[in-house]
């Protein structure tokens, strides 16, 4: 067996991030007095350069490298871009909050970069083991991040909980992968797809493996029945970490589901689609019902996130009904939903960061009382976010729901679409309650809002983007469609 030097070029972004992780680690060790700002600047610099690398290497063709373990395609690039943007915003939002609590140690940014690396590896993986390695890099960094406030009992408890359950889920996923490998003899996704299509694989083992894969994916997406960790971890983790947790990793989980199920196991589509149907329905129902009774806004956002991921799955399970057009529409609907969700959750958690200050953590829904009195501009931005999450038009959330519901109806899942609509009506109530508190009630806390200019500007841009994308969702949707068309997603 002769050794072939792999083509490093397609993986330039990942290699750059890995190099920057090391640079950041070394430089912050040796320049301890500068470390706080240095780590932040280095992290933002890394994200910026990674964005540029990704933009310059955008390509419609599919390039495999590292012996087929790695794939560079348009889908991966677009997802990486969104992840980079989300991380930039997340780090920016969190900075002031962390500084006020003396939590802005360089390790925070280091772990965030490491998590970014894991996500990027997941997005570009074309091989079960690479996928798993990416997942573990991401998850381990996240466990540490959740427990980052090590003097806080809540934070460490959340970290522990997340670690134990996450490790279990990773184990399940790995077990599933081993079964798929056992049945098909392949680790590469295209090889698995071929083996399944060739009917040579043992169907029983394969289905058994699929169930475990599904458990792993569900855990990472945070959907029912593997959702239990979500509210506890969101509530316990420092708010900036909850923000990170609810944004970029969701895109990674979306990529994981897309690569494993759509690329790797299209032959079992009818099975995983049925499973996803149950998972989606249960998530939408439970997420919305449980969010109704929350007092803590982080828990409310966690449950609302569960239901949003359920909605996203509506798109993912509606593909493959025969026509390429339908399939593409369904998957791009799901992708659009995931991106829209990230945008909304960033803004929602950003608001918490805005309302928090030294010695005060905005965590209760009541903390939004009378926001219109304190700052009409940020109240209206939060109103955008809430109505967008509720799926009311002129906001991006409406077209996200529209896209996935249309796909579900085109695929003939009328009952599922009906159920989703009924539950989104119930969901509207708790979003309306936040608007009610902001507009109809008098403030409990009259302190003026002090936040850094960069946070205020970015939050405004984020809020306005929710409206702009709600008015003009066409471009992003077309982009999602083009990305899926150009990647190795089999249609029909």
């Amino acid at each position, binding site marked *: 067996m002769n050794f072939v030097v792999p083509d490093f070029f397609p993986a330039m972004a990942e290699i750059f991030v890995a190099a920057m992780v090391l640079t950041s680690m070394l430089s912050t060790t040796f320049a301890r007095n500068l470390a706080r700002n240095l780590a932040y600047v280095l992290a933002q610099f890394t994200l910026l350069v990674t964005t540029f690398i990704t933009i310059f290497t955008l390509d419609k063709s599919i390039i495999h490298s590292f012996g087929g373990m790695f794939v560079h395609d348009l889908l991966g690039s677009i997802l990486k871009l969104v992840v980079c943007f989300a991380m930039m915003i997340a780090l920016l939002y969190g900075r002031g909050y962390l500084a006020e609590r003396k939590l802005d140690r360089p390790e925070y940014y280091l772990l965030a970069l490491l998590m970014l690396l894991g996500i990027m590896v997941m997005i570009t993986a074309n091989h079960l083991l690479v996928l798993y390695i990416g997942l573990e890099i991401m998850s381990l960094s996240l466990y540490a991040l959740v427990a980052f406030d090590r003097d806080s009992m809540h934070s460490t408890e959340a970290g522990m909980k997340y670690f134990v359950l996450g490790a279990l889920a990773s184990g399940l996923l790995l077990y599933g992968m081993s079964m798929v490998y056992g049945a098909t003899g392949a680790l590469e996704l295209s090889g698995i797809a071929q083996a399944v299509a060739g009917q040579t694989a043992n169907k029983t083992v394969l289905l058994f493996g699929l169930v475990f894969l599904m458990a792993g994916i569900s855990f990472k997406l945070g959907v029912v029945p593997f959702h239990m960790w979500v509210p506890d971890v969101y509530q316990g983790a420092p708010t900036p970490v909850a923000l990170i947790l609810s944004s970029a990793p969701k895109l990674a989980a979306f990529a994981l589901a897309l690569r494993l199920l759509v690329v790797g196991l299209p032959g079992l589509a009818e099975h995983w689609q049925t499973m996803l149907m149950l998972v989606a329905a249960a998530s939408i129902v439970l997420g919305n019902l449980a969010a109704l009774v929350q007092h803590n806004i982080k828990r409310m956002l966690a449950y609302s996130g569960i239901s949003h991921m359920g909605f996203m799955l509506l798109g993912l399970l509606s593909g493959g009904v025969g026509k390429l057009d339908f399939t593409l529409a369904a998957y791009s609907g799901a992708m659009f939903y995931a991106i829209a969700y990230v945008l909304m959750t960033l803004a929602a958690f950003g608001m918490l960061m805005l309302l928090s200050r030294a010695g005060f953590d905005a965590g209760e829904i009541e903390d939004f009382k009378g926001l219109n009195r304190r700052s009409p501009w940020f109240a209206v931005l939060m109103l955008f976010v809430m109505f967008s999450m509720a799926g009311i*038009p002129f906001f991006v959330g409406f077209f996200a729901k529209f896209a996935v519901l249309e796909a579900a109806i085109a695929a003939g899942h009328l009952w599922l679409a009906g159920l989703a609509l009924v539950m989104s009506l119930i969901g509207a109530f708790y979003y309306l309650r936040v608007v009610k508190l902001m507009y109809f009630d008098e403030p409990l806390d009259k302190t003026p809002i002090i936040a850094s200019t960069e946070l205020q500007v970015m939050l405004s841009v984020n809020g306005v983007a929710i409206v702009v994308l709600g008015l*003009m969702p066409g471009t992003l*949707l077309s982009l999602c469609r083009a990305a899926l068309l150009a990647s190795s997603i089999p249609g029909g």
Partner: protein
Amino acid sequence: MTDIPDIPFLSLAIWIPILGGLLVLATGPDRNAWMARLVALLTAILGFAVTIPLYIYFDAAKVGMQFPEARSWIAYFNINYHIGIDGLSLWFVLLNSFITILVVIAGWQTVQNRVAQYMAAFLIMSGLMNGIFAALDGVLFYVFFEASLIPLYLIIGVWGGPNRVHAAIKFFLFTLAGSLAMLLALLYLHSVTDSFDILVWHRAPLSMVEQSLIFFAFLAAFGVKVPMWPVHTWLPDAHVEAPTGGSVVLAAIALKLGAYGFVRFSLPIAPDAAVAYAPIVIALSLIAVVYIGFVALAQADMKKLVAYSSISHMGFVTLGFFMLNPLGVEGALIQMISHGFVSAAMFLCIGVLYDRMHSRQIEDYGGVVNTMPKFAAFFMLFAMANCGLPATSGFVGEFTVILGAVQYNFWIGLLAATTLILGAAYTLWMYKRVVFGAVANEHVAKLTDIGAREFFFLAVLAACVLAMGLYPFPFADAMHTSVNELLRHVSAGKLH
């Protein structure tokens, strides 16, 4: 009238109030309230001014949509910014833009708190509602329909009465529940026809089962909005808690959105289902007319009384539509316009009293005529119009619908005609208790009569009510062609 200037009047009617509303918001805190009021008034007047050419250049003999504008909005879903009006929608665009001016004037002094936000909410709402009446694309319609909930939710919740939160949330969720059913129907229609164009849907062949499902989905959406019995319970709450301006817009325009939906969606898209299920709608409408009439009789709160009277009058509208004869449909449309004027006037009158006494309870009043003679005269006229006295606008619509109902079935006509008695009973009884008699207490004795601003908006509405009652032909003429075309389409059906 052949040379229509090449100006997108319809788009202007939608976007001037919305952009003007944003401008008003930009005036900021209450120390700039005068600026907010001024900008709002100018915007409202300009918004109404651009709708006048719509009437001038409207060709009443022409079948189909006029002033059409179509450009691609979201090419990905094949959603178009397609707008246009016909005889069914023309008057509502005008009515809406007109009422907006009155609402701005009515809130001129009475609203002192967050003035810019108040004015902006009404202006944006007005633009969105013009969008609803003009939209010819299903998603465009839905987007305007849903988005218009947001300003009204805030209007009720921020400037409303003591129980405003409950009323605002109830209003929002009831309406949203109905419109989600409509969204399902829209998506289904798209999956069948591959288009979101309402005019394409009008022609699309649909089986009876499909038509039935679509019909009931639309019934859910529009029935809540009208509101029809038994999903009317949100309306009295919303009316009682809303500020005067909110009640005016709600009664005069927002209720018409539901009724308009029936003629734009339900009847033409599912004509065979509409014929088949007409008896259900007629039964619900009659319950609204008769039962709600009795409920109104029992009210102790003036606003609640007028709210129930609105439900009863809107029952007349849905009754007229589902007679499916020209008299019924045209009468119902005229009733909608007339109710727009009359209910607006009734709520403004109650607002005038409430501003002075801070009470809406009938028992707190008595002998108002002694202290407010000018006001009592206007109130008398509007009360008469509300019970359908000849020579007022209320008479024209009700009489035509009753004629249509008798043509359809004598007994239904008879039941519908009870409204003339019930309407007179609850309206005039309330009027008597509030206005006539001896001065009831020292608060009433201290009342001052209406000022110039109040005189102005009541006089304008009085002129409208009388003009429409004495000479309703311009209103009816613009509708003939569209109504006949609609009924021809419905009777042709889609099952061949």
